[in-house]
């Protein structure tokens, strides 16, 4: 059993490594969704999918043999609504939870401002929660449906394994295949786009610059004149 200090040290070492890797790769979760939708650019989306594929195999593999610490969250409509608001917010701010910290570490005042208001938003909702006690806090989740709280119980690879007797990794392989199919579809789309343009893919031609990594070239000019959240301000300095 790891001590509290050990947990904090492990978390800091992990976070520091993530900070270095994300800063050096310019990976951004916001760009993984926004750029795919707005600009048909999939550099960050492909990396997100690769990460999820590895994690699916890793988590379900260890769950199969009784190891690991899975999150225990009841399924609730609040997860859809909350992440819907989050999705709008991260595109407007031009940064997600990860890139806010990483860009702040790079000296981006806009990212620091986003973090400040993220904290204010959290505090504001803590007041709402204190008045309504909704959604149910994790400590009060039962794993059973609670329709008055818009909660539908708990279900994940571990519960599937327990109910069916089939190892969690089998379900993990199905999810891995689905994610891999999506990854292959993106590669096909990129090849089709390259064929239409008669160009070599940027990912193989050269390492992306800071500007390309933040937002594709088509958006840079517009962002520089109209602004575009944290990434917009980042482009201006490029």
């Amino acid at each position: 059993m790891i001590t509290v200090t050990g947990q904090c040290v492990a978390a800091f070492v992990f976070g520091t490594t993530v900070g270095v890797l994300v800063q050096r790769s310019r990976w951004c979760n916001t760009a993984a969704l926004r750029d795919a939708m707005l600009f048909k650019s999939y550099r960050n989306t492909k990396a997100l999918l690769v990460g999820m594929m590895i994690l699916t195999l890793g988590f379900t593999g260890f769950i199969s043999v009784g190891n690991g610490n899975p999150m225990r969250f009841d399924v609730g409509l609040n997860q859809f609504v909350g992440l819907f608001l989050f999705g709008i917010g991260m595109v407007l701010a031009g940064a997600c939870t990860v890139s806010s910290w990483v860009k702040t570490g790079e000296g981006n005042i806009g990212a620091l401002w986003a973090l400040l208001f993220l904290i204010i938003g959290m505090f504001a909702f803590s007041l709402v929660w204190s008045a309504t006690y909704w959604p149910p806090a994790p400590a009060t989740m039962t794993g059973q449906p609670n329709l008055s709280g818009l909660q539908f119980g708990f279900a994940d690879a571990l519960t599937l394994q327990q109910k069916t007797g089939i190892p969690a990794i089998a379900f993990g392989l199905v999810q891995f295949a689905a994610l891999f199919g999506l990854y292959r579809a993106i590669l096909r789309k990129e090849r089709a786009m390259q064929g239409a343009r008669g160009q070599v893919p940027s990912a193989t031609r050269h390492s992306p610059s800071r500007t390309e990594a933040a937002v594709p070239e088509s958006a840079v000019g517009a962002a520089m004149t109209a602004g575009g959240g944290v990434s917009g301000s980042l482009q201006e300095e490029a």
Partner: protein
Amino acid sequence: MELFKKTLDPIVALAIIALLDVFLFLIVGAWTVGGGETMIAGLVAKYVLGAKTLARIPFWRLVFTPTWAYWKIYISLGMGFGAFVAAVLSKEFYWRVPRHLSEWVMITIGGLLMGIGIRMSFVCNVSTFFGLTPEMNLGGYLAVSGIVAGAWVGSLIYKTVLEA
């Protein structure tokens, strides 16, 4: 060092992060950021309002009692520290300040929405993509649906602002 001279392929970066996340999952729990940020919000509120005032707010008494001994805080602080070190070593650290009022407004609204969204859902984008969904939690699929729909709406707003 070569790492600090050229941009790293994000697929390589995310593959390494995913392997490390599996290790973290084994010893303490999967990578998440929203929980640590909530605790930081509680610690800031405790400093600003005082412990007695904060304890009158049920959320901070029942759900997140502010403490520095919460491992998730250190993931967030580590990410900022790691990025700072990497930026300095690669000579990419410099102050960047949004120049247009529209940027400040979008960042402010975006930050508020992210904070409200995390607390409403009890998960963030990281725990959605790198925790719940790889664990095949049904809530992860709901959260992915929500964040994709939100990013689509946000992209429409973003595009409108860019074209204005």
